[in-house]
């Protein structure tokens, strides 16, 4: 045969784009001020959660009965609460629980939602019809109501909060994954997999999944923001983190009655903490979204 027929192959660099798709995403992430700002805020709270206990000036649980409701001062930067506990220490350490519960809930939602979305998007038809209707029904119920029922049934614990938030966010992620899978499954590489007699699991998880990671990542970061918000809300309502753990939502709930008395510092700093964390996550989300859609 004509061995000379071959077009002379160029050195790989000629045909190779310089960066892989993930490299490109990373490249645009590190150049995105939005992402970097968000990441900065997020990292600050992560450090507080991990190491806060060791560098805060007071033990967040230590009550100082003679020094209750002291306004911010050099001694107590953010003042003290009604039990005389240092608000600054409680705010810093208060990130610990929320930053455990919210990400775990988000991971649970992502795993469950991705698996569900892959299955209904891949099989379509009756499976999709039934499961999608059930998911829609589920999404119509407010998280708080689900939480209330779950806590009555299972009792309050961090695990309950994680499961409740995880499962109530899973359908939303499933819906995103489903629509991405619907587009992917029409591509010829899926037909090629069928022509190799690949099983459904291989096709879903090895062939399709890697190609739908970008929308999943974006949705996950969006959900993380909502999860933080949801944890704070549940704690505020008393269904989440339980006293005496320092927690932002919980602190606001136990102190907001005192704003009227002028003791604003017992609430303001916790509220700002929640806000900053949610904003940080949202900035990260915007950055990730932008990097994938450039």
């Amino acid at each position, binding site marked *: *045969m*004509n061995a*000379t*027929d*071959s*077009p*002379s*192959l*160029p*050195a*790989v660099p*000629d*045909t*190779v*784009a*310089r960066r*892989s*798709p993930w490299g490109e995403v990373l490249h645009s992430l590190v150049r995105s001020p939005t992402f970097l700002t968000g990441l900065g805020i997020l990292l600050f709270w992560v450090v507080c959660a991990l190491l806060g206990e060791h560098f805060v000036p007071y033990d967040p649980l230590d009550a100082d009965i003679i020094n209750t409701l002291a306004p911010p001062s050099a001694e107590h930067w953010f003042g003290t609460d009604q039990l005389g506990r240092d608000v600054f220490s409680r705010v810093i350490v208060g990130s610990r629980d929320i930053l455990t519960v919210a990400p775990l809930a988000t991971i649970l939602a992502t795993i469950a939602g991705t698996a569900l979305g892959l299955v209904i998007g891949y099989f379509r038809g009756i499976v999709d019809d039934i499961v999608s209707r059930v998911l829609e029904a589920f999404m119509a119920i407010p998280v708080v109501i689900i939480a209330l029922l779950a806590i009555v049934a299972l009792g309050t614990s961090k695990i309950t909060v994680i499961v409740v938030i995880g499962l109530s966010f899973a359908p939303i992620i499933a819906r995103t994954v489903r629509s991405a899978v619907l587009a992917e499954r029409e*591509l*010829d*590489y899926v*037909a*090629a997999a*069928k*022509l*190799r*007699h*690949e099983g459904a699991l291989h096709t879903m998880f090895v*062939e399709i999944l*890697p*190609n739908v990671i970008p929308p999943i990542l974006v949705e996950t970061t969006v959900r993380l923001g909502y999860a933080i918000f949801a944890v704070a809300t549940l704690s505020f309502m008393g269904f989440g983190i339980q006293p005496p753990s320092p927690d932002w939502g919980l602190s606001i709930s136990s102190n907001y009655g005192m704003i009227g008395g002028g003791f604003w510092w017992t609430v303001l700093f916790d509220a700002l903490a929640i806000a900053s964390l949610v904003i940080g996550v949202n900035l990260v989300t915007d950055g990730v979204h932008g990097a994938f859609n450039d």
Partner: protein
Amino acid sequence: MTSQAANALELKDLSVAYRVGRRDRAVLRNVNLTIKAGEAYGLVGESGCGKSTVALSVVRYLPRNGSITGGSIALDGKDLMKLDAEALRRARADSVSMVYQDPGKALNPSLRIGRQLTEIFELAGISGQASENKALAMLNRVRISDPASVMQRYPHQLSGGMQQRVAIAMALANDPSMLILDEPTTGLDATVEAEVLDLIGQLRRELSASILFISHNLAVVSNMCDRVGVLYAGMLVEEGSTRQVFNDPRHPYTVALLRCLPRGGQRKDQGRLDTIPGFLPGIGATITGCAFADRCALATERCRAEPPPLYDLGDGRLSRCHYHDHAQSLPRATPAEIAAVQPKLAPPVLQVEGLNKTYASHGRPLRAVKDVSVSLNPGETLGLVGESGSGKTTFARLLLGLVPPDDGGSIELEGKKLAPRLASRSEDQVKAVQIVFQNPDSALNRSHSIRHILSRALKRLGGLTGKALDNRLEELVRSVRLTDRHLAVKPRQLSGGLKQRVAIARAFAGDPRIVVCDEPTSALDVSVQAAILNLLADLQSKQDVSYIFISHDLGVVRYLSDKIAVLYLGRIMEFGPSEAVFSGPHHPYTEALLSAVPKLDRTETSRIRLDGEIPSAANPPTGCVFHTRCPRKIGAICETQEPELTEAQPGHTIRCHIPYAELAKLQKPKTMEPA
């Protein structure tokens, strides 16, 4: 023409660069180009050579990262580089129009056609009824029947050909002096392409507009243009009258490009196509000598060191080659010789009997494939031709088992019946029938490396593991002329031709008996197409594999096929040995398809054009399904009675009421040659 002075378009030393990764990369390098008033100028070249950038520069509409780094553009004698934003806008609105490749994207999907057309006149200050009348007149001009009803429709309710006519009407609405057509027929069926080209040809005679016609299809340009320029790596390498350039090329690149096309009914057993070795220099590459030197067998030290100027060869001819006088002595990059293949007497590898596929469309049956029977011998190629919507791809998917056929018909592979569904076929049967898809970007999983893609195919289809798999992988990669280096990368890091080689390798992983090739070269440039066709022909003669080859390019189908099935609305209209089908006498539909193919050597014969659209398969015409468009319809019998597929000659069947002898007489005067 009023004044001789003004050229419609004059590019002087135009250089354009795109900014990629903080570096300006040259895309056009000192392009000089003049289009006289009323002239049609064709710009040809492979993808990436800068054709579209020329078009965008003319209207100064480069993408954001593009900039004109030197030279000037004069439209009607006006220097565009000196105009401010408002004057530039006026110049665009008044004197230049553009028609793009994909009319579906050029038209606004949410506005009615009438609205989109009248908008142009309203911008010119004509309003109300007057603009509507003008819009109707424009649609009449582009020969749209029933323009009033077309005005009321949305773009998606029109066929591709109609959409392109509307786009042309919109482009002509401002009576431009310069009309830029950027691949205007590339996405269209050959029959529709022929209609659109006819229209452009007629409009040229009626209008004074000069035309810049950009196409990768040399035959189309040769039919449409007075002069032609060949672009390579952002440089004009050859220019001259169309006849001169195509019949007597003076640049090795043009010579090589013309040789890549299967011409004059060339067939695989008569030799391989020529190819162009190597690749186009990447954009922004520094070019010392001649840009083509690395791929040119004639290149000498001088070519590598000294950039050739555009030599003036007199008579309006230019060539950027030091050795333009013997450019045509360029040796072949691919030897034509092939080992003679002895025809074998073997039982057919594939036998399809009475295959049907009916879809439900709004509660009505849609017969995508109706009563198709074909047989194919080992080592042979069956070419499937027909317009889009004729059922070619559905037929292929039925064979593959990707969609189950209706009950009844049968598919036999080497004498054994194939289950209708892929899932119930045996492993051996699954690996015996494989496919090379049209679009490798969709066919190769973009998340997987080439090694993963091919190894998985070898594991599943070849049943290999471990060392045996690695050895076979190496062999497979070599057989499609890739190297180990290509294994580590992901598909997007390869060029279109290399990706298609990977797709071919995957199809051959399990030693298939039949490989369906669904338009495998339609997304590729001609030089790459030639290499892929050669590869397919080589693999076939080596492995005795059979192909089902689907393509809208009849020259390509003819090169590779031993048998041809012509499909129309899911029915076989003609089936027979390739030579018999092409040389005729043939079915009137086949005749029309062949006549629609633009030919490189302009021998105007009386052309046959199909009117109107391919009817809907959900509501096919009564009698012979082709009667609504048939130029040789004989009478009422065509409308009432569906003709049988009758044997005209041994092995050659035609579905037509006109007897074979009569067809022979009708079609005698012409000899049809594709491409």
